[in-house]
């Protein structure tokens, strides 16, 4: 169907969308290299804002705080989420049904309302605005994504692999660790990545639950932006975009198709 008459229209349409979607990202990067403080023209190239960034200790502290938080939450989410996914898969509908409904509910409730709720709960049980409270709240918001991604994969996995392992003399635990987990690896990686990103970006949760005196990156940026958009935020955004793209390229190189990790392409393993 090379001579498809709609092909030209299709290509044009894709290019238009590419531009619209790229606009915010591209202009953010452009502004980060513009010498002018308020993003005004004419454009003059400068790495000024990147230099400012390296000396902005409050922002760098916030980056460190956010990365630490997101890493901890990711590790917890991956372990808990994998076990939960596996448990849901094995459990009867009576147990799995409510848990699934709850996970979907957690996906849907606005994070802001959830954080408001969590503040009162944590106050109630005496955790208050502690790091532990922040980690717990972040886990609760990130976990549903991990479970959704992993359970898609697990459901697509032939039960034959686990049964083959059992028939060869491996007990349930050995089967889980040496067969099921390795076969679920792509979705575990994808779920972990998603958990990291969602936790890293969860402004609403962090705004309410971050201990006093500790700023995560989104909270720090918020307080900076309230004083006017400064291009060193754009520089930071540009760095984040660049590292994301780099990560995607590396993953593509490692797995052949990184997008497949997130889209859960139904490749029944053979």
């Amino acid at each position, binding site marked *: 169907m090379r001579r498809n008459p709609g092909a030209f229209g299709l290509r044009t349409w894709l290019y238009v969308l590419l531009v619209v979607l790229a606009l915010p990202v591209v202009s953010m990067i452009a502004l980060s290299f513009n010498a002018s403080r308020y993003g005004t023209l004419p454009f003059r190239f400068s790495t000024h804002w990147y230099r400012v960034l390296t000396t902005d200790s409050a922002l760098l502290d916030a980056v460190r705080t956010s990365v630490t938080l997101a890493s901890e939450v990711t590790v917890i989410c991956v372990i808990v989420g994998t076990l939960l996914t596996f448990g849901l898969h094995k459990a009867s509908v009576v147990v799995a049904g409510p848990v699934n409904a709850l996970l979907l509910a957690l996906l849907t409730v606005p994070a802001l309302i959830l954080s408001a709720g969590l503040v009162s709960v944590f106050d109630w049980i005496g955790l208050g605005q502690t790091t532990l409270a922040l980690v717990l709240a972040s886990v609760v918001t990130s976990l549903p994504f991990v479970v959704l991604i992993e359970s898609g994969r697990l459901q697509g996995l032939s039960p034959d692999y686990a*049964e*083959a*392992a059992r028939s060869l003399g491996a007990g349930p635990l050995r089967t889980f660790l040496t*067969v099921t987990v390795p*076969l679920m690896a792509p979705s575990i990686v994808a779920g972990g990545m998603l958990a990291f990103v969602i936790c890293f970006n969860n402004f609403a949760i962090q705004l309410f639950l971050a201990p006093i005196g500790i700023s995560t990156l989104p909270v720090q940026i918020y307080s900076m932006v309230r004083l006017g958009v400064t291009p060193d935020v754009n520089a930071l955004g540009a760095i984040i975009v660049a590292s994301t793209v780099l990560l995607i390229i590396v993953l593509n190189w490692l797995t052949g198709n990184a997008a497949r990790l997130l889209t859960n392409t139904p490749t029944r393993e053979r």
Partner: protein
Amino acid sequence: MARVIITGVSKTFNGSTALHPLDLAVEDGSFCCMLGSSGSGKSTLLRIIAGLSEPDTGTVRIGDRDVTGLPPERRRIGFVFQDYALFPHLSVGSNVTFGLRARHVSKREAVVKAERMLELVGLTGYAHRTPKQLSGGQQQRVALARALVTEPDVLLLDEPLSALDRKIRGEMQRELKRIHRETGLTTIMVTHDQEEAMNLGDRVLMLSNGAVQQFDEPERLYHAPANEFVAGFLGAVPLGHGVVGTGARGRFVEIAGNRFALGDSRLPDGTEADAVVMAERVTLTAATARARDEAEHEGVVVSLDFFGPFARAEARVGDVSVPAMMLSQHATALEGGARVWIRIATGGIHAFADGATR
């Protein structure tokens, strides 16, 4: 190596019966084929023996152990799946050593045993490949090696050849026969292919709708099918409904006025019965070739189909349609509309009373 004894095993899925209570004894060192179409319960039974499924009632014994409550990993079985189920994240070698490692055999010893087993299945030197790099037949050999290397008491095969090309299937049948002969392992194989079952099995268990139809040696199954279902599954074609009688030349079944000789039927004279015929036991001779023998029927060729080595014809005797299967070289003298003499070899026709017994 051990006998497998099944007593009163039954199974229900969501209210529908997958297996009616059944007993079965597979002798030590024998090769048992479970034959049936999909939904006959043959795979369910195999999975119950393996411990991958629990029976609702009954017990399973392997050798002198009652394994009914045991999980699969404690039954000392080897299981080969239809789609091989080789672990895609492990090399061929690691697939084969998996069962040994699970049994805490040292790595060094496991590798040596795996090498030896890969040699048995003709895959020396393939240990470092991944399963994906192998052809279907090679994957099947690895699955066999993986199941055999742990020296199981019994080898269970779930339609192991159905995913293979016809040519490789024949090759793998010979391979399975050889491995069974060399290891002497009690083997139970599930298949829907009657030729495969007939060729490989010492005994064949014919299942339908979760019930045993017949459990017999292949020759017996073929020459003395227990009921119309078994006969039909083995390729017998309905001839018609008639009445059993005894005449000058022995027993016969009379259908629409034509008398067809019966072999050793136990049905009393006067029984109404359905008759089936094995097409490959029917011989057609062009009427021009020679005079008609007394034991032969006269008929007309209605159709003639050519399948390469084999040909299939259909002839009419009065109102009865008689199929005939022959080597193509013997069909060259025939043609549609030709008058033929039809000879049906003794035992070529079976009659079954409306119940089931033969």
